[in-house]
Structures are given as structure tokens and as C-alpha cells.
């Protein structure tokens, strides 16, 4: 256990000193501000373009922006945030394995489980701070300009996104236990990300796929209730747990 806390401190120091934390949080803050900003600017932008549209015979009436537009931007930007997270952390395990920086610690009796779990926890922390920071800023501005009450289940929808992010992080942990490089981890996790919607298109299991957690718009509009998401939530949580737990024995068998 002493090894785990020492390693956790090291991981936090690492993301602070390599500026990864700073950049990631900066981006989530930026997204947080941009979501309402884009929604706010849309009518002006369309007004600006409407002369061109009028020439083509398209007429646009006045558009009324509500908090829903701001939250739609939130949903659109979240995959971007996840991709940045994935790129930043894809090499978190493999670079240490290939450089051999962990070997002195392992020979001092550090367990490999501590290595896997401390890095997992740091990614989890970064992602949690990031998404809720972004959520908080968007929430504040949306309430400032419009009214958040027209949008339903805001916190629950964000929680679904958070859980989906946890699933992506578990994918990084899982692929890192046998992949040779950060690029391979990125490709593996990316493949999971893009294959899920494809499976969803052809199968009835769509409702239970982790990716269905990212459908926040239906929640916002009240078309779906939180109950409709519980199946996917449980599946996602179990899959994440399974990925992390399988990564432990795989890392033990890995040649370092």
C-alpha cells in the first residue's frame, strides 16, 4: 500500500510537471465557455449569412436560442474532449514499459497492480475534474443568458458522459496491458469507440451499448427517461471493471 500512495503522488507530479493536466483542463474550460458562446452567436451568424440565403431563395425567420442549444454544443464537444484525453494518456503505460523506468521500483518490491491502478486513478481524476469543470461553466453561462429549466436531466446526462469516459479510460488500461506502443493503444481504444455505433445500427442490443449513454439530447428533450439508461449504465460499469481487472493479470505476464 505504501508503494501505491508513493506511486500515485508520482503520477500526479508527472501530469502537473509535463503540463498535461494544465493543457487538458485548459481545453475543458475552453469547451465550457465555447458551448454557450457558439449558441449565443448562432443567430448573429445566420443573420449575417441570410442575405446570401435570400439570394438563393431561402428565407430564414428569426431564431430563438434557448439553453438547449448551448447544451447541444456540450454534447457535440464532449467527444472532442474524450479524444484529446485519449491522445494525452495513450502512452501513459507503454512509454514507461518501453523505457524501463519502472524496473528500479519493481525490483524494490513494488507490485505491478499498484502501477496499473495508480495510473488508472490519475486518469480518472483528470477526467472527472475536466468534465465537471466544463459542465459547471456551461451550466453557469446557460443560466446567465437563458434558463436551464427548459432542459431536463442535465446532471444525469453529464453523469452518463462521465461514465462513458470512465469506460474509455478502462479501454486505455486494458489495451496498454499488452500493446507495444501508445499508438496501438490509441488505435485499439479508437476502434472500440467507432465500432460500437456500427454494432448499434444492426442489433437490438443498441440500448445496452455504452455508446448509448452519449445520447443526451433525448434526455434533454424529455424523450427518454433516466430509467431508459440504466441498462447501458450497468453494462458500461461492468465492462469497465472487467477491462481493468483483466489488465492486472495481463500486466503481470507482460515482459518488462
Amino acid at each position, binding site marked *: 500500500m*505504501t*508503494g501505491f*500512495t*508513493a*506511486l500515485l*503522488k*508520482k503520477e500526479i*507530479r*508527472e501530469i502537473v*510537471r*509535463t503540463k498535461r493536466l494544465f493543457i487538458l483542463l485548459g481545453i475543458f474550460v475552453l469547451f465550457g465557455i465555447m458551448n454557450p458562446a457558439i449558441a449565443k452567436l448562432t443567430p448573429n451568424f445566420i443573420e449575417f449569412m441570410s442575405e446570401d440565403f435570400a439570394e438563393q431563395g431561402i428565407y430564414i425567420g428569426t431564431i430563438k436560442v434557448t439553453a438547449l442549444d448551448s447544451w447541444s454544443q456540450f454534447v457535440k464537444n464532449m467527444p472532442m474532449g474524450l479524444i484529446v484525453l485519449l491522445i494525452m494518456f495513450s502512452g501513459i503505460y507503454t512509454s514507461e514499459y518501453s*523505457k*524501463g*523506468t519502472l*524496473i*528500479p*521500483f*519493481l*525490483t*524494490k*518490491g*513494488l507490485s*505491478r497492480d499498484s502501477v496499473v491502478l495508480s495510473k488508472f486513478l490519475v486518469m480518472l481524476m483528470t477526467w472527472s475534474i475536466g468534465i465537471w469543470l466544463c459542465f459547471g461553466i456551461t451550466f453557469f453561462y446557460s443560466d446567465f443568458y437563458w434558463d436551464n429549466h427548459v432542459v431536463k436531466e442535465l446532471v444525469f446526462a453529464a453523469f452518463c458522459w462521465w461514465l462513458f469516459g470512465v469506460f474509455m479510460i478502462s479501454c486505455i488500461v486494458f489495451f496498454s496491458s499488452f500493446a507495444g506502443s501508445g499508438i496501438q493503444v490509441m488505435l485499439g481504444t479508437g476502434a472500440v469507440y467507432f465500432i460500437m455505433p456500427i454494432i448499434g445500427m444492426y442489433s437490438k442490443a443498441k440500448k445496452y451499448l455504452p455508446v448509448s449513454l452519449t445520447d443526451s439530447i433525448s434526455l434533454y428533450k424529455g424523450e427518454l427517461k433516466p430509467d431508459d439508461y440504466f441498462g447501458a449504465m450497468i453494462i458500461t460499469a461492468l465492462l469497465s471493471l472487467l477491462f481493468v481487472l483483466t489488465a492486472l493479470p495481463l500486466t*503481470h*505476464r507482460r*515482459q*518488462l
Partner: protein
Amino acid sequence: MNVLEVKELKKSFGSKKVLDGVSFDVPENCVFGFIGRNGAGKTTTMRAVLGLLKADGGEINVCGEKVSYGCTPKGGCIGFLPDVPEFYGYMNAVEYLTLCGEISGMDRKKLKARISELLELVGLDKEKHRIKGYSRGMKQRLGIVQALINRPKLLICDEPTSALDPVGRKDILDIISAAKEYTSVVFSTHILSDVERVCSKVAFLEGGKTAFFGSLEDIRALRSDTALELTLVCPNDIEKVAAAFPEGKETDGRFILPKASEKDCAELMAFLSAKMIPIKRLERHEADLEDLFLEVIGK
């Protein structure tokens, strides 16, 4: 009691047999030289001892505890210095060593004292910069400190001196000799003069086997004979000398008298001065590790 025992260690990579029955043991407070050519399997053996590599056969005991793959011996028994130690560039030496100490479960107060003591020993105590800017020699020294931090019973160094300049090499060897006070050191190398300088026991690794294993005195006893090497001013005189000392032979314009005793030496000198043969150089050759090494590997 032996700190390290390796018995009949075997390992192949694919069809290539790297280790084919390596056996040796290391007693307490001993500097052990592990000698072999590049690619002889030194690093493979060490990684197996550390539990970082799965051996195909054989047995390894560290401090009386059996080593198995994937779990390094507990209790901070082994310190390891890799051939090219890699650290975290964003930390400074004290931060890195604190991390090492915390991982091995050391007491905070003791750790602090130990770090400053060791950094002073290797001359890194004035270095406040981050490891990113360290030179190769500095990294090697920090690597030794890292390995010694929890006073291990066994220190394993993989080619600690191979990439260093003469001054750096001397520093590292001095540190290793000093560490002998409380630990046994195994270090692999192909630089034989380093071995002669600090080791008390050696093992030669050749063809995946331990070709020789014993103390430095054993080696000297094995090859106690000394040869005389004579270079003359005028090469034509060699024939005269050769006629008087038939057991000698001529090579490359030099005259070599093998297995020469003190008496042979005196006789040779008397002969030279009696015949008024001018000489350039007369040298006594001690049999050294290199001769034995070459003999062992059959070259």
C-alpha cells in the same frame, strides 16, 4: 551463507539457446565479476535473477528465497542498476530518491539522511537541476544511489562502466568497492581491467554456460607462470639468443621465453651482457585475466 545462488539456469529465445546451464553463487560481502562477451547472456541472467524474465529451467535463490517470474524477492533484498538507467526527467535527484525510498517502505527521517549521505558519496549533492539535463555519467551515479537506497543485501549492476570515460569508471568502481561493506555486488562487464581492480570472485560466461567460476586467486594459481619478452636493437641477434635458449620462440621480431623462472631471467640477462647484445626492452609478463579469458572462450 550465499546471498545469491544460481543453479543450472536455462533460457532460450525462440530456437536460440541463450543460457544453457549457468551456475554460480555469490557469498556475502563480495564483489563478483560476471564476465562475458557482448551477447553472451549476462543481461539475460541478471533479469532472471531479478524476476523480470521467465527462465526455462534451473533455480535461483536470493537470500535463501526462491525467485520466480513476475515477483521480485520481497523485503528489499536486491538493488538493481540497469545498463542504461532511465529516470523521470521532470524530477530532481532528491525527489526521485524519495520516491524510491517510499516505494521500498523506508522511514521518512532515515530516508532523508540516507539520501544526502549517498548523494554526497557519488558527488551529486550539489546538483539541484532536474534529471532531464543529466549526463550519462551522472545518470549512472544516480542509478547506483537508487539501487543502494534501501541497503540491499545484493546489488546487481549491468555493465555499469561500459559507456563511461576513465574518470567516470574509476568513480563508479570506487563506489562499488565502498558498497562492499554492507552488501554483495554482482556486476557484469566485458572490461577485464575493471574486474581485476575490484572483484574478489569471477565467473566467465561463454556459450550459455559458466566456463569458469572461482576467486581471483584461483585464476592466478591457474596461470602462475610468467613469460619473458625480449626486444633487441638488432633483430639479427635473435638467432644467437634462440640458439642459447631453445625453449624460447621468436614472434614478430621479439623473443619470448615462456614459463620463465627468476633463475631463467637472471641467466638470460647474464647471457645478453656476456655476448654484449644491446637490448631495447625486457619485460616480465604476468598471466592476466585476459589470457585466461581468451583461453576459456577458446580463442
